[in-house]
C-alpha cells in the first residue's frame, strides 16, 4: 500500500500545485535556516577531543598578592612559569604539558621562497600523546630534549610541503629566527576545534605549523603570543621564572575521577606550601576543569550563535504551523474523497497513513530543498569575518539530521491534519456532496 499512497500523494500534489509548492517552500526555508544555524552551533560546540575530553584538565592556581582578594573569586586562567615548571617537574599526573603559543620567522632554504612567519607552539613532549596529535612521519621529542633545550622541531604537513615539497622531512633542517632546528616529526592535518588547549587567541584558530620544545624556545628567545597578565610590575623579563605574570597553559591528563580528586588535593597542598614559604598570599584557590567544563566556563560558543539558533528554531516552528494550516486546508478539502474511500473499505488507519505519507513526502522534498538552502546559508557564513567561519560545513551527521528534521517536521505537521482527515464522517460527506 505504501507505493499506492505515494502515488496518491503525487496525484494530490499535481491537483494543487500552488498549495504544494507553498508547503514545500515553507518547510525548505524553515529547515534551511535551522540547519544553517544548527550546523554552526554543532561545529562550534563539538567535542574537540572525543574520548579524552573527560581526562584532560587545565590547571588554575592563584599566586596573586592578598590585596584585592575576594573569597570565591576565580583564579587566574593561565599559569606562571614558576608554577608550570614546578608542577611539570613534580610529574604527579599521568601526563602533563606546559605551553604557550608563539610566532616565528622561518627562513626557507629553497630558492625562490621568501622568509615567512608561522604560528607555533612552544611546549613539552607530553603535548603530543595527550592531545592525540597525528604523526605522519617521525615522532615527538624526548623528555631529555625538554630539559636540554634540544634544537629540534616538529612541523605540520603544510609547512613541510611548503619548505621541502614533501612530508618526508624528518632529518632535514628548518631555520627559525636564524637558528637551525632538526625536524624530527611531521604531523598530519590537525585542527582541534575549538582550539581548547589555548583559547587566548582565536577560539577556532587553525592549527599551529611549528612545535618546538619550550626550553628551546626560551633559549632562542622565540616570540610568544597570547595574553600576558602581571599582578605586579615585573622587575625584569616578564617571561622569567620568578616574574609575577601568567602566560602559560598547563594541562594534565588524569585517567580517573579518583586521580583527578587526588591531583586537586595535591594542588591545594602545593598552594598551602607556597603560602608557607611566602610565595602565595591567598588561601588555596584551585580549579581543575576538564575540557568540557573548560569550554563551558570559557563560553566558547558565541551568544549570537545560540541566539540565531533559537531564532531559526522559532522560524521553523512558524513554518511548521503554517504547514499545519495548509495541510489541514488541503486534507479537509478532500473530505468527500476521504468519505468515498471510507465507504469503499478504507479504515481510519488507512486514511491516516495515506495522509501522513503525503505530508512526509512534502517533508522529504522540502528537506532536500532545505538542504540546498542550508548549504547556501553555510556558504554565506563561510564568507563572514568570524574565526569559525571556515568550519561551517555540513558533515555527515548534520546531513542526516537535516533529512531527519525535515521528515520529522513534516510528519509532525501532518499528524494533526491527517488525524482530522481520518475522522471525517463518511456518511455526512457522501450525502452532502
Amino acid at each position, binding site marked *: 500500500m505504501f507505493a499506492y499512497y505515494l502515488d496518491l500523494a503525487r496525484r494530490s500534489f*499535481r491537483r494543487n500545485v500552488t498549495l504544494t509548492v507553498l508547503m514545500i517552500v515553507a518547510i525548505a526555508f524553515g529547515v534551511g535556516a535551522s540547519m544553517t544555524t544548527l550546523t554552526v552551533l554543532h561545529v562550534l560546540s563539538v567535542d574537540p577531543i572525543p574520548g579524552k575530553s573527560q581526562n584532560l584538565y587545565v590547571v588554575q592556581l592563584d599566586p596573586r598578592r592578598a590585596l584585592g582578594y575576594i573569597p570565591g573569586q576565580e583564579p587566574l586562567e593561565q599559569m606562571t612559569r614558576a608554577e608550570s615548571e614546578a608542577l611539570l617537574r613534580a610529574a604527579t599526573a599521568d601526563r602533563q604539558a606546559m605551553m604557550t603559543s608563539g610566532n616565528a620567522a622561518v627562513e626557507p632554504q629553497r630558492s625562490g621562497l621568501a622568509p615567512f612567519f608561522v604560528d607555533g607552539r612552544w611546549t613539552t613532549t607530553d603535548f603530543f600523546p595527550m592531545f592525540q596529535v597525528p604523526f605522519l612521519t617521525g615522532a615527538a621529542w624526548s623528555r631529555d630534549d625538554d630539559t636540554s633545550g634540544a634544537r629540534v622541531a616538529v612541523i605540520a604537513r603544510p609547512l613541510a610541503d611548503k619548505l621541502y615539497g614533501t612530508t618526508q622531512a624528518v632529518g632535514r633542517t628548518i631555520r627559525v629566527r636564524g637558528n637551525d632546528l632538526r625536524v624530527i616529526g611531521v604531523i598530519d592535518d590537525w585542527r582541534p576545534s575549538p582550539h581548547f588547549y589555548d583559547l587566548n587567541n582565536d577560539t577556532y584558530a587553525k592549527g599551529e605549523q611549528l612545535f618546538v620544545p619550550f626550553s628551546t624556545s626560551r633559549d632562542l628567545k622565540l616570540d610568544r603570543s597570547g595574553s600576558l597578565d602581571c599582578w605586579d610590575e615585573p622587575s625584569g623579563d616578564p617571561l622569567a621564572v620568578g616574574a609575577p605574570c601568567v602566560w602559560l597553559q598547563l594541562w594534565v591528563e588524569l585517567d580517573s575521577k579518583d586521580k583527578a580528586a587526588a591531583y586537586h588535593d595535591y594542588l591545594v597542598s602545593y598552594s598551602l606550601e607556597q603560602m608557607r614559604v611566602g610565595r602565595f598570599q591567598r588561601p588555596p584557590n584551585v580549579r581543575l576543569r576538564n575540557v568540557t567544563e573548560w569550554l563551558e566556563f570559557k563560553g566558547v560558543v558565541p551568544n549570537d550563535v545560540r541566539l540565531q539558533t533559537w531564532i531559526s528554531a522559532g522560524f521553523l516552528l512558524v513554518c511548521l504551523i503554517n504547514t499545519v494550516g495548509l495541510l489541514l486546508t488541503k486534507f479537509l478539502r478532500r473530505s*468527500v474523497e476521504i468519505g468515498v474511500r471510507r465507504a469503499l*473499505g478504507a479504515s*481510519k488507519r488507512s486514511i491516516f497513513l495515506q495522509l501522513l505519507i503525503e505530508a512526509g513526502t512534502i517533508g522529504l522534498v522540502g528537506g532536500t530543498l532545505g538542504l540546498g538552502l542550508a548549504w547556501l546559508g553555510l556558504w554565506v557564513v563561510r564568507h563572514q569575518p568570524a574565526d569559525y567561519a571556515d568550519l561551517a560545513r555540513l558533515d555527515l551527521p548534520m546531513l542526516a539530521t537535516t533529512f531527519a528534521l525535515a521528515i520529522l517536521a513534516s510528519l509532525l505537521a501532518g499528524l494533526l491534519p491527517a488525524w482530522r482527515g481520518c475522522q471525517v464522517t463518511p*456518511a455526512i460527506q*457522501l450525502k452532502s456532496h
Partner: protein
Amino acid sequence: MPMLHMKDVSKLFRTEMVETHALRDLTLEVADGEFLAVTGPSGSGKTTFLNIAGLLEELTGGEYLLDGVNVTQLDDRARSRLRNEKIGFVFQSFNLIPDLNLLDNVDVPLRYRGLGRADRKRRIEAALARVGLASRARHYPAELSGGQQQRVAIARAIAGDPKLLLADEPTGNLDSQMAREVMQLLEDLNAQGTVVVIVTHDPEIAARAQRNIHIVDGVASDIERAPALVRPGRAAAQPSAQG
C-alpha cells in the same frame, strides 16, 4: 441466513441542544437475492438506515447482523474490511474521484482489499465491461456524462463482487433515459444474485423493486407485496427532541 438482519435498531443523533431519533426500533430482514426499495419523505431516516446498513454509521441500540456477522461490537478496522468485502455503494452524486481515471476509480476498493495487480486488473476490466465502459478506462470522470459516471460508480461498486449493493438515490441526478439504463443495470445485477437495497423518492423506481419498505419519522413499515418481514417499531411513531 438472511443477508441483512436488523433487530430493534435505533439511531439517535445528539447535539448539545437536541436529540433526534433518526431510526426507532427497526426490525428487518433482507434475504439473499432480494431487491428492496426504501422510500419515505425527506428527513424520514432512509439515508440513516442505508448508512447503518452500509456500516458507515454506528447504531445506537439494537442488533445488526450482516451476512451472519454481528457488526455491533466490531472495531473500525473490522467494519472497514467487512464493508469492503460485502458491500458495494452507489451514490446519488456518483462520488467518483476526479483526478483518477475510470480504471483507477474502480481500483479503489480492490486496493483496500489488498488484491494482487493481475487480479485487480481482471476485476476492473470485467466490471467496466459489465457497465459498457471498457473502452473508456483511461478517461477521467469529467469526460463522461452523468449516466456514464453512474455506470462507472456501479462498476466500482461491483468490482469486488459484493453480496450487497446499497444505492442512495442512484437515479436522482439523471435524466429519465439514463435513469432507466442504470435501473436496468441494477436489476441485472440483482438477477445474478446480488442483493440490492435502493433508497429512492421516485415511486416509479420503487415500483420496480420486489419489495418496498416505507420509513416515516424513523419508523419503518412494509408497504407491499413481500412477506411480512418488517414489523413496526414498538415505540411511538413520533420523533422526539429534547432540549
